[in-house]
């Protein structure tokens, strides 16, 4: 029993931290600091614990329905890091928006816990619960600017679509349960190895439904419609959390679900082809939608919503490559990590613009920034270059690995398309830089000013982006070693 506790320690600490945060917030209602500090503490401890346990062997517990592996540990550590960064980077924004409530913090912690469990779940039902544990706080946080109808609308859209998709996922797992008699990943895997018929329609339908649920979560077109609206409406730090934490957790889970049956088993060839075709076509659609629509956007949050849609497209190239025998998942993981470092910086930077009405940060707010604050311009430029995949930023290496692995698996035409999409979206990333350095400040442009902590967070992420861009060895070396499915 206590080795179970020992294994689950980081998760348990996180859960305890949630209670603690709730407690301190009711002890002194008027002040938000206690909740904030306890949340920070919780996250730090969780991160440290999961990091120092990182090299321990993977263990399946609760009858194999949860598996704690080095991957789940490092992901949990990443989640706590993201949490820390957004707690630090977000508080000034919350203050400005008058929504600095203690609830924010324990909701955030619950969300992280859900994500942490989701990446550890090896059972469809546990996965469902984790999904909901992650999503419900997300809905609430999206609507956290209670008196702003846009935020409210975002939350409701997110809730309605998310709820429906949750049901779809559940239906899918019911079908899988019906087809295989189990909801445990390993036994489903075993079943697929046994059955030589290459899967029956019931299983196929179920598999597709669960995959679609997570394709929705990662906003692969044509399941992306929710994303721009929710991104725009939600408070900026929450948007940041969605595009980093939730995106990572969901994509990892998506990869797991795609690999649910043993696609390389005999008799499953046509099934595997069908899966590949599906993912390939969705990748194409996501790339096109993301990079074509992004150049039409004026609102920065929407712009990065479409950006993340095209990032999903690139990620699906990696996923596609991972379906070929002998290909690891490391390109996808490295892409996710690299993307997170850039995205955190960008969204925290976005919180630094003073509010102008109820609409978010518009492109015009950036005009003439180089004269108003050159340092911030430099930060923006580096992060945007990383998004565009320019050299000497981590963005280059993430794209590099994904492209390389897909070319290696004979997907060259797809890569050419992706490359051209990268060119198109590069325009969208360069245009802000152009506005910052080439134009004089527009009269309507918002003022910019971030507190120490938010600036600190941005600088940290910029340093990470540049360092990993020059010396990607550490990240690549570690993440290459990680197997996703055992």
């Amino acid at each position, binding site marked *: 029993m206590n080795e179970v506790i020992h294994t689950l320690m980081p998760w348990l600490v996180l859960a305890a931290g949630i209670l603690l945060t709730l407690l301190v917030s009711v002890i002194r209602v008027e002040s938000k600091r206690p909740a904030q500090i306890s949340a920070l503490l919780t996250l730090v401890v969780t991160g440290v614990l999961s990091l120092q346990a990182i090299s321990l062997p993977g263990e399946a517990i609760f009858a194999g329905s949860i598996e704690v592996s080095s991957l789940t540990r490092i992901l949990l550590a990443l989640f706590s890091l993201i949490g820390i960064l957004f707690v630090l980077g977000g508080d000034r924004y919350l203050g400005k928006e008058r929504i600095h409530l203690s609830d924010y913090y324990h909701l955030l912690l619950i969300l992280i816990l859900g994500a942490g469990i989701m990446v550890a779940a090896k059972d469809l039902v546990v996965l469902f619960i984790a999904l909901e544990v992650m999503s419900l706080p997300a809905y609430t946080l999206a609507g956290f600017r209670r008196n702003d109808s846009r935020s409210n609308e975002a939350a409701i859209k997110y809730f309605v679509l998310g709820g429906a998709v949750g049901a779809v996922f559940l239906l899918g797992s019911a079908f899988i349960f019906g087809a295989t008699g189990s909801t445990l990943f390993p036994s489903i895997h075993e079943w697929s190895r046994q059955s030589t018929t290459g899967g029956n329609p019931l299983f196929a339908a179920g598999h597709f439904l669960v995959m679609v649920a997570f394709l929705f979560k990662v906003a692969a077109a044509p399941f992306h419609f929710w994303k721009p609206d929710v991104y725009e409406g939600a408070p900026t730090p929450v948007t940041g959390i969605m595009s980093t934490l939730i995106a990572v957790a969901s994509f990892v889970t998506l990869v797991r679900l795609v690999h649910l049956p043993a696609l390389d088993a005999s008799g499953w060839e046509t099934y595997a082809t069908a899966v590949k075709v599906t993912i390939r076509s969705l990748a194409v659609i996501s790339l096109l939608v993301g990079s074509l629509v992004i150049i039409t956007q004026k609102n920065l949050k929407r712009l990065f919503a479409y950006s993340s849609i095209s990032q999903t497209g690139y990620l699906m190239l990696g996923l596609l490559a991972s379906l070929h025998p002998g290909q690891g998942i490391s390109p996808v993981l490295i892409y996710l990590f690299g993307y997170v470092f850039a995205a955190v910086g960008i969204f925290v930077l976005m919180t630094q613009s003073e509010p102008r009405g109820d609409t978010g940060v518009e492109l015009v707010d950036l005009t003439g920034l*180089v004269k108003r604050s050159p340092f911030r311009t430099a930060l923006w430029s580096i992060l945007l*270059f990383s998004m565009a995949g*320019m*050299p*000497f930023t981590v963005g*280059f290496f993430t794209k*590099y*690995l994904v*492209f*390389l692995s897909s*070319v*290696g698996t004979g997907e*060259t035409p797809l*890569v*050419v398309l992706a*490359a*051209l999409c*990268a*060119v198109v979206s*590069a*325009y969208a990333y*360069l*245009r802000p*830089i*152009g506005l910052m*350095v*080439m*134009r004089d400040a527009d009269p309507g442009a918002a003022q910019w000013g971030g507190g120490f902590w938010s600036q600190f967070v941005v600088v940290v992420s910029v340093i990470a982006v540049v360092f990993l861009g020059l010396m*990607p*060895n550490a990240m*690549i*070396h570690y993440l*290459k070693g990680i197997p996703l499915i055992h």
Partner: protein
Amino acid sequence: METSSSLSFLLTVPLLALLISWVIPKALQRLYAIFGSAMILALTVYETSGIIFSVSTEAAKAFFVDQRLEWVPELGLSAGFRLDGYSAWFLVLSALTTLVAFCVRGVWYRKQPRLFVSMGFFLLFALNSAFLATDLITFYLSYEAVFIPMIFMVGIWGENQKASSVFRFFLMSFAGSILMLVSMFWLMSLHHGATGQWSSHLSDILGSVSSAQAGDLVWPCAGFFLAFALKVPLVPFHGWLKDVYVNAPMPGTIWMSAILSKLGVAGIIRFVIPLFPAVLREYQGILLALSALSVVYAALLAVRSDQGKTLLAYSSISHLGFVMLGLFSLSQEGVNAAMLLSVGHAVTSGLLFFLLHQVEERTGDTSLNESKGLASSFPVLFTGIFLAVLASVSLPGTLNFGGEFLVLLNAYRASALCTILAGAGVVLGAVYMLRFFQRLGLGSPGSAGPVEAALKKDLSMTDILMVALLVGIVIYGGINPGIFMKG
């Protein structure tokens, strides 16, 4: 050991200069920039002297340096650099061009001079590492890195339509280079398939490419070719060039026309020709035809252009067409001749743009619609311009003549027709360059634009020294062109 240190030295010195530029007071930035780039030029010449002053290629070979540092072992990435008969001269050229560009006075020394100078030195660093790189990915990275300072230069100190022009410039070149990256991936996976390990070093790739048959290599070759054709540029891939040349600040224009275009040349010399000999030979006719076409096409555009900067931009395309003609004659001689002509073009176009800026400073515009008759007011300046014009029409006795003559001589063996077509460019070159000189210098004075009182006087002493240096190179190269052909 000692040799490899010289390479790292050449690469790090510009970065050092960049760092120092941040502690130099604004007022001294120009002085510092000129001094620093002059020092770097001297150092480069010193470090590469073994090659550039050797009597023959065979003698030079002793000084070639190969250096390969592990960078990302997991991906087989290495920082591979090679100093050889070509890259040595490209290094000298980039340092020289930087010196010329820094010499140009202008708003960039009044508005954020520190940023300008550091951008310049960063550009020099990126150029050097691109010219030296033998590792595909190292090359790609440096090749892309060259954009970054260029974008900011045009963006911050450029003319009015800078935004659209710089985006077009960036996006077109980026499209080319990213497709080149895909081709690199293709080659790397080819190597991986053959040997089972990842490497992006040219020497490794060459080994596995030789086994592949030409049919499969067509598309990768096309990827590389597209990138470099856009960079040089070759007609019809030149759409980005005019606007950005016209809108860029003069130092930017000098950098672009004199040395950025040579990135394409260097890339073709180092990567395309060794990697895809069979493919090139198969499509040689088309390549030669394209080169000849761009010679004539650009020359015709230059004939009808009514702005000094535009005319020089098109003439630059036209001359680079000759360079490509030499490269695609696919013979050692042809490549050497192309190298010679690239040096000539770099020096000449640098000189021309430099002096054109002097004219612009004095009269406010460079329109060629009516004769300005400035030669009588600024005799020295216009003597310089005339010498540059002579070099650019490749009069015998100038560096460019050797280049153009040898290029055509070797191209003639490959295709008489294309050579004759390109020869038309020789005549047209005389037409537009003489018109350029006439409209600026000759005719009756007085029709010149507003002349700032401060600039009524002729070239300053530093400018004269700069011009003398460049003209000296041109004439020395005319007498002893062999020094530039160490490939």
